């Protein structure tokens, strides 16, 4: 093979550049997994952690349609019998008081931009 000395280093540089986004994620400090703040106020959420992790947006839509359109109850009960308000502001944000430490933690990581706070007024951040 001719020009082995140029081709092999050239290939290595090329592969390095192409895979840059992958190893950069591992190397840089930003590669940490999201860690949303756990509330201290309540032990149990309205549904299981797995359900909330994957389907909290579905739950919020269901609450909204049920309350606004079908005249559903504004109150619910968790599995252990604790009462809660079925409301983003008066329910969710009552325990998860910080949008920045809870919502944004995952949403920023996953690069999703929900439009909740375009209209709903977000709670004041403590610091």
């Amino acid at each position, binding site marked *: 093979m001719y020009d082995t000395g140029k081709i092999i280093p050239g290939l290595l540089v090329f592969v390095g550049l192409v895979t840059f986004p992958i190893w950069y994620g591992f190397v840089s400090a930003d590669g940490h997994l999201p860690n949303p703040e756990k509330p201290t106020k309540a032990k149990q959420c309205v549904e299981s952690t797995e359900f909330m992790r994957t389907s909290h947006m579905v739950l919020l839509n269901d609450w909204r349609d049920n*309350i606004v359109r*079908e005249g559903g109850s504004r109150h619910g009960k968790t599995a252990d019998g604790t009462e809660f308000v079925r409301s983003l502001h008066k329910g969710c944000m009552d325990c998860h008081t910080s949008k920045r430490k809870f919502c944004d933690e995952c949403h920023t990581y996953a690069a999703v931009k929900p439009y909740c706070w375009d209209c709903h007024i977000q709670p004041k951040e403590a610091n």
Partner: protein
Amino acid sequence: MDNSRRKFLKIAGLSAIAGIAAPTAFNGLLKGEAQASSASGGGHGGTGAASGKRYGFVIDVSKFARDKGLAQRCIDACHSIHNVPDYGNKKDEIKWIWTDGFENVFPDHSHYKKNADLHDAPILTLCNHCDNPPCVRACPTKATFKNPDGLVLMDFHRCIGCRFCMAACPYGARSFNWRSPRELDAAGNYKYIKNPKPEFPTRMRGVVEKCNMCAERLAEGKIPACVEEARGANAMVFGDLNDPRSRISKVLARKFTIQRKPALGTHPSIFYII
């Protein structure tokens, strides 16, 4: 002319189908069954079964004529709890409840020589929460709908800002957000919403809004904010029109009342004692 038998039969068949289909389509429209949105319910389900309630107001105009500041206090009570923006100009104005002259509120009833009191008395007016609401028929996304308690409500999430409902409403009860209600001033506060209430969302640019008869307060067992404000002067009565024992039904049975533009057949739930 090369009219084959085949061609003749085709034309005859199509004409027959058109002849049968056209009257059916017309009848559907004339009977008022047509909705701007397709299949009832759609992705967000229908509204729940009717509760048999129909909430309404009686507004006593003479009480408002006696206490000139009362109407404004009712307006402020409503607009402050619902984060209604005040843009400071008539063109962009958002109003859930407002006052207008007698001849504007009751064009059917205005006449040449009328009671002097009525000339300058501002008449408080708001969404009529019609029993047959034209806005609901016009809405292509079912963002506006009639809830089980007979309130005409909006789901702001679904409003696409087409403003068909504004064209359909004969009372001008709907306002459009031509600009963002959440513009900030230099200090980082909302420029157009003084003392925003976090319990109630604001709207965004491109969304229609109107009175919701304080559905969020009714759910907590409270009465609408304007009625609460006017309660001292006994100027407004709120209640279930379908319940013959409710106070509003008794007032309506005793007093002569008028409605806004009754000839349109919208069946308003707001009644006025003149």
